């Protein structure tokens, strides 16, 4: 097997005295889509922040294309080719859509390439072209999400870290955005690490998945196999076997197998 483009080994990340990530290890193969599932507070966002340099791990390593990048400044990580689409979008509200996109290409010097990419982004999300000169703060939630993804794309990343792109969006919009994520992956060869609470969507989109619970990975498998697991069905997909009463509200114990 080829060396994975991104390899996280045994990272421990703290918020003050609280260890949020307790020895997490996983790999993302080049050109793949990998998802990390987990409930609130499991540590998904912290994992992404640790990779992109916003947070520093106390221990462990993050290896990107054979190079250790843990504790590197976020801008350096970004220059190496890792773009982060943060949770809650975080677009610059008072800048226009076009300016936001240009911010994404801030570190690039090839103006031809930037112009090309701008066209490509508008190709993926035509609505952004329509709103190119509007302030980003006036966009709808879905449009802001498109903008955040596009802004990340403007850096021509090799790896894109997506933090809950489905947050607060309508089911239809979620589907559209995930379709585009797949296209970006296929057409532009961008490797994707996707963190999601919408397990259904994430498992349909990704090739491989990890389940994170209270800072530790408890399950790892291909998404095809994950959707067949009892615990995934019950706790992440909300599918319950029908009990004798037709419904059942109590929860089984998780066994992760």
């Amino acid at each position: 097997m080829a060396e994975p483009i991104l390899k996280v080994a045994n990272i421990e990340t703290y918020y003050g005295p609280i260890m949020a990530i307790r020895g997490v290890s996983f790999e993302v193969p080049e050109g793949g889509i990998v998802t990390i599932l987990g409930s609130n507070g499991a540590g998904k966002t912290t994992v992404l922040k640790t990779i992109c340099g916003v947070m520093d791990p106390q221990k462990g390593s993050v290896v990107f294309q054979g190079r250790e990048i843990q504790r590197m400044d976020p801008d350096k990580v970004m220059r190496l080719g890792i773009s982060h689409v943060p949770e809650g979008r975080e677009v610059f509200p008072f800048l226009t859509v076009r300016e936001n996109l240009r911010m994404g290409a801030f570190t690039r010097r090839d103006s031809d390439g930037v112009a090309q990419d701008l066209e490509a982004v508008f190709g993926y999300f035509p609505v952004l072209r329509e709103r190119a000169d509007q302030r980003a703060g006036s966009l709808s939630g879905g449009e802001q999400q498109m903008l955040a993804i596009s802004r990340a794309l403007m850096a021509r990343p090799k790896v894109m870290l997506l933090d809950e792109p489905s947050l607060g969006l309508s089911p239809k919009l979620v589907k559209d955005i995930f379709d585009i994520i797949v296209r970006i992956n296929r057409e532009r060869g961008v490797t994707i690490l996707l963190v999601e609470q919408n397990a259904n969507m994430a498992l349909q989109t990704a090739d491989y998945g990890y389940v994170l619970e209270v800072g530790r990975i408890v399950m790892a498998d291909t998404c095809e196999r994950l959707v067949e697991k009892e615990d995934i069905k019950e706790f992440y997909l909300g599918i319950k076997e029908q009990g004798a009463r037709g419904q059942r509200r109590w929860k089984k114990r998780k066994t992760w197998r």
Partner: protein
Amino acid sequence: MMDNAMPVSVETIKVEGCDTIPRLFWHQVGARDDRTAFREKDLGIWKSTSWRDYGERARAAGMGLVRLGLERGEVVSILAETIPEWLYVDMGTMGAGGVSNGIYPTDSAKQVEYILSDSQSRFLFVEDEEQLDKFLEARERCPQVRKVFVFDMEGLSDFRDDQVMPFDELLALGRQHQADHPRLWEELIAGSQPEDLALLVYTSGTTGPAKGAMISHRNVIFQIANADAFVSMRANDEQLAFLPLCHIAERTFTVFLPLRSGAIPNFAESLETVPENVREVAPTTFFAVPRIWERFYSGIAIRMKEATWIGRMAYRWAVSVGLQVAEARLEGRRPSALQSLLYQVADYLVLDNIKRAIGMHRVRFAGTGAAPIAPDLIKWYRALGVDMREVYGQTENCGIATGMPDQAKLGTVGVCAPHTEVRISADSEILLRGPHVFMGYLNNPQKTAETVRDGWLHTGDVGFLDNEGYLKITDRMKDIIITAGGKNITPSEMENQLKFSPYISDAVVIGDRRKFLSCLVMIDYENVAKYAQDSNVPFTDFASLCRTREVIDLIGSEIERVNQSFARVETVKKFRLIEQQLTAEDDELTPTMKLKRKFVNEKYKSLIDGMYVEAT
């Protein structure tokens, strides 16, 4: 002393002038009135229940059952965790003349069905929605069950079923019936007879289906009357109730013995919160199975690994001082003046803190039983200053058969209980005789005849009595391994040593008719994951953790360490890790989280065979 023929007492056995459980119970309800019977934690606050309320609720439950047609000798089953309602139903049922039977809340719907049918249960009490579902799944095959009562109706408010009734409604029914027939309850209690069947206890059945052991009132009263030979009993003792009440050990400790002593059980919120609850309660008497003692120990052992250098040194020093004093006492010597002085310092600086960390700083009696335990573990607790004593017994003798007297002897399970006999048969089996021997297995005269012969209960355990009358248990008879080389090996000794490791949750030694010994290990997930994390070993899920070279080496070195204290033929040559995290719901484990040897042998046959194939 033990071998002398001792006349088994035939005269009535009484506690406080009472010879049946309901008589004793009702007598104490009257005598103790507003004194605290037990406590439970409600919304974060420990709340007391008085004996008067305990009695009133038990009576309401019992009278409710009578109102719904419970006849003397009919069976009532309880499917719930360790909660106060369990006690109301237990005492209510027996008071009303019924037979009380506990079912493990971890049992599957199929097992529940089997026990309900085998016991011919007329009524069933379930804790909640989850347990109710097991019955609903099985109900077509359990037509003899008339009614099911639910303690906790959460999630069931819109559920209607003629056969299902909230527990509160039963109590209301019972109170009404009590008002209509004010003398009936006391008449029913007066009608109880010492020789009557009081309870059924289904033995976990590591072989074949579970068997219902029949325990009489006399069996229980006898144990209550004699337990103080080994168990410290004082009114106002504080206890923690958390093990399954279906198990005879917890039932005795939490329900029966307090009938005499007045000790106060405190119901733990759940099995997971035991470490916190035990610190809050700071029990003065505490009984637990070895697994719990092992967990407390490994918690401390792991914490010490992370402590500062000075902390570790202080711990090591203090424990060594404690051990010297403990060893002196075990040998019947008085510790020297210097040792005593050092011990006081060690206790003040270190040992007391450790005891506080595990909630054992007030404990006067710490009991272990229901499974074998490593003698070194007992020694460690004794070094802390916890007077830990092992008791031995089984369901079939209603709890205690032997216990540790003041002069403890490690590696043995102590001496024979008063008014009972222990004998070793020609083929080394431990036999028991006395008023504690049960009535037999329900619906199974053949098994009963095999188990009780000429009044002697055949325990299935192999062991011997030493010259001072202390019983030493070698192993379960059917667990003894005879290797291909013809060597007899008792696996439990090694398994107990292995479980002493904080990284090993349980282990099964294998090797019957094989060339060498091997072992299947269930790792302690928390501690091993922590180890992997600390030593920078990447892993993802449980299976991948078990497969890392470092973890395999870690367990290998733990096994090697244990191997050193055994003769060469008795050492484990190969091992495999069970790559699945098991829970009490799994068939591989007993409700007390022990691996079932026979089941494991079958389920992991290919894994086991693999170890022997490679070798040839």
